[in-house]
């Protein structure tokens, strides 16, 4: 009697409401409980999902019409209609949180039962792609569970409270219980519109009936758990290198490479001393790229830039070769306005508390800058503080390390646009004060109105060296995201370089025969 259950470790899901979900780990939950309008593909575009087709109405890319799939069932058993989608979009935009930022103001209109129109403020060629992070909810259920009073007048809290522990989605799994920040239980939704076909799977590989997401950050304990069979799949990949080696050598365990992430150290161009471009460049030259990558060599490689080398439109950026060049660093430092009072300078580097590799980058920086006589303060505040600091230029530290999976954005330009154009949300993903070069902004803006994908790509190739020339960020290396799991867990069927689809457990199977043989 082997249980058809998968225990999965993710980061703490706090909110499971599509309108407020924003972080990776929320997105992981979204893809399991809800379905997006469109689904990302391995090649970086999107394909039909809840929407079967879409097109811009009128020529200026501000008006889009989506046709919905028929027969999609919510977990309640009711069919998804344009009414639900429009309600969800209005809710998403009104609440203005989560991933709604890049959409701007969107007005939804129901055309008929299976057709919905979206009107945008500004033209956007990539609007359909951005809907890969839009998950419709069931209108009736949400309205039935609105809590009064709330911030939204008659609509009370817009169902936010209820949705944090329940779902109203169409996804492959149904939420059973949710203890925010601790545990989420879900069971398979047999009425899932995409079906549960065995195609592409082995004979013994069956869909996973029950999912248990746990949220632990202590990798020592997780290791114990993994080894004892208490954990089936770990999707955050916070392993240390020795742990990864250990997992690799265990026949009962497997390691799946999912994608690479861009380790990025943002420099705040608004506060001293990183407001000086030469100073920033000095940092880029002083950093010892080779050393810090060393331990990761078996799992990835050090080459990286503003986007990842394996993505379309990648352009290598300075410094080249990617190696420490203290000579150049000193020259740049001498040019900076802080050249004469290096002793008084403290460079503040913040990483997300608990992530060793992020700390290691800081320590490397600390050691490197010490050779130039610059003190670096390395601190790892916990995630909420660390992310909240970046809500204004003044409170953002000189350097903030963040893991960007450029793929986590529906298309590469989504990433670059939100990162470097003004009007972002003022948080860690889109800290718009990092830079405001009018020429650059204008170039970025023009891409939104460019319907031709190829022309857009060319513009981005042009843009990258310009951005890089300002030395806005340090890109130490790309870090592989590795999922550790029991050997009897199979997947993902389709490796999509986008957060969510890979953790969509519809995409995974369990081999019960192997599991039984393993005695677990």
């Amino acid at each position, binding site marked *: 009697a082997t249980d058809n259950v998968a225990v999965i470790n993710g980061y703490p899901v706090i909110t499971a409401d599509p309108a407020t979900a924003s972080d990776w780990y929320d997105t992981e939950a979204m893809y399991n409980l809800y379905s997006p309008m469109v689904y990302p593909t391995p090649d970086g575009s999107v394909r039909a999902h809840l929407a079967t087709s879409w097109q811009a109405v009128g020529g200026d890319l501000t008006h889009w019409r989506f046709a919905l799939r028929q027969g999609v069932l919510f977990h309640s058993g009711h069919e998804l209609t344009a009414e639900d989608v429009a309600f969800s979009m209005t809710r998403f935009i009104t609440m203005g949180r989560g991933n709604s930022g890049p959409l701007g103001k969107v007005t939804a209109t129901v055309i008929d039962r299976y057709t919905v129109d979206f009107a945008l403020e500004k033209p956007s060629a990539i609007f359909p792609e951005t809907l890969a992070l839009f998950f419709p909810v069931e209108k009736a259920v949400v309205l039935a569970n609105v809590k009064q009073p709330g911030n939204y007048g008659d609509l009370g809290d817009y169902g936010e409270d209820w949705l944090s522990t329940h779902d109203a989605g169409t996804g492959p799994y149904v939420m059973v219980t949710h203890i925010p920040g601790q545990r989420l239980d879900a069971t398979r939704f047999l009425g899932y519109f995409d079906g549960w076909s065995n195609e592409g799977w082995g004979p013994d590989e069956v869909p996973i009936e029950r999912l248990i997401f746990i949220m632990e950050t202590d990798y020592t304990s997780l290791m114990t758990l993994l080894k004892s069979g208490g954990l089936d799949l770990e999707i955050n990949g916070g392993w*240390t290198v*020795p742990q990864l080696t250990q997992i690799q050598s265990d026949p009962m365990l497997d390691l799946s490479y999912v994608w690479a992430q861009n380790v990025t150290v943002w420099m705040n161009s608004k506060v001293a001393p990183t407001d000086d471009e030469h100073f920033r460049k000095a940092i880029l030259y002083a950093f010892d790229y080779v*050393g810090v990558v060393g331990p990761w060599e078996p799992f990835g490689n050090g080459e990286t830039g503003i986007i990842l080398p394996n993505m379309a439109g990648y352009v290598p950026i300075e410094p080249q070769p990617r190696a420490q060049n203290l000579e150049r660093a000193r020259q740049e430092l001498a040019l900076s306005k802080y050249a004469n009072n290096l002793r008084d300078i403290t460079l503040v580097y913040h990483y997300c508390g608990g992530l060793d590799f992020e*700390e290691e980058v800081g320590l490397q920086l600390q*050691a490197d800058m010490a050779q130039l006589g610059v003190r670096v303060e*390395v*601190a790892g*505040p916990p995630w909420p503080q660390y992310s909240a600091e970046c809500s204004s230029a003044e409170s953002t530290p000189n350097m903030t390390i963040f893991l960007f999976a450029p793929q986590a954005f529906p298309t590469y330009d989504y990433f670059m646009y939100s990162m470097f154009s003004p009007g972002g949300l003022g948080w860690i993903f889109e800290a718009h004060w990092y830079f405001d070069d009018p020429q650059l902004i204008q170039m970025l803006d023009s891409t939104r109105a460019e319907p031709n994908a190829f022309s857009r790509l060319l513009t981005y190739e042009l843009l990258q060296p310009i951005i890089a020339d300002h030395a806005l960020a340090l890109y130490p290396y790309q870090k592989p995201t590795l999922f550790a799991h029991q050997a009897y867990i199979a997947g993902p069927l389709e490796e999509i370089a986008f957060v969510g689809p890979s953790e969509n457990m519809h995409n995974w199977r369990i081999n019960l025969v192997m599991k039984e043989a393993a005695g677990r």
Partner: protein
Amino acid sequence: MWQEKRADLAASFALRRRGLAKGWYKFSRNPLSVVGLVVLVVIVLATGLASYITPYPAHAGPYTNFKAAGQPPSWEHLFGTDRIGRDVFTRVIFGYRFSLLLGIVVLGLGVAPGVILGLIAGYHRGTWVETTIMRVTDVFLAVPPLVLALAITAMLTPSLLNEMFAIALLWWPWYCRLVFAVSSSMRNQFFIREAEFSGASEAHILFREMLPNCLAPILTKMTLDMGIVILLGASLSFVGLGAQPPTPCLGTMVADGAKRLPGEWWSTIFPALAIVLVILAFNLVGDGLRDVFAVEEV
């Protein structure tokens, strides 16, 4: 006149020397305490001379060497190297420096106010003065120190200084309560009464008559508390609220190393042992002091 004065001084010194000699004699009767003291002296010397006796003093500061990371103990690296290639032995010795510093600063800041308040409360036993002081003390003692320390350091930004500040803020009530217990039981002793009746000032009674009698338990508690404070510091840094990198901090080292346990055991076991050793030493010495101060039956 002068001669007399000198004789007087000499006699006082002789007295003190005799007292010390006797104390040492009693202390040394317990071999474990002596071992503890020796260990402590070695640790203190080692931390003092850390820059000279450790093989890689640079490893206590900003330094990385990923190529040499995670090496097992060898002659080159007695305790192996950590995840970024620093010599664990060096860092343990420097880690002691911060542990001891923490203990000294916390006790330095915490003991004096606690003792003074405790004396005052003890002397004014049964009055509103006592009630006020002791109720405030109770408030601080109503919660485990680690919890309050965590709360305070969490609210401030984590750093060695804040850690010290938070713990020191919590430490005085223990001394207040201890001194209160001793001094209030002494309150009705005849020698205190006699001092009062003969008209001695309150300061005299507090600091000359009562304080010397509280010193023994205070000193003993301080020694034992050094261990506790170090442990508390280690616990705080274990949770991630300790000193910031690259400052070597024993608790952080244990927490860090634990993530690499089966493989790189040395990076957690040695710092852990180091913590155990220093706490053990303080405990042994504290027990020895207790023996020294134990009331004589003869």
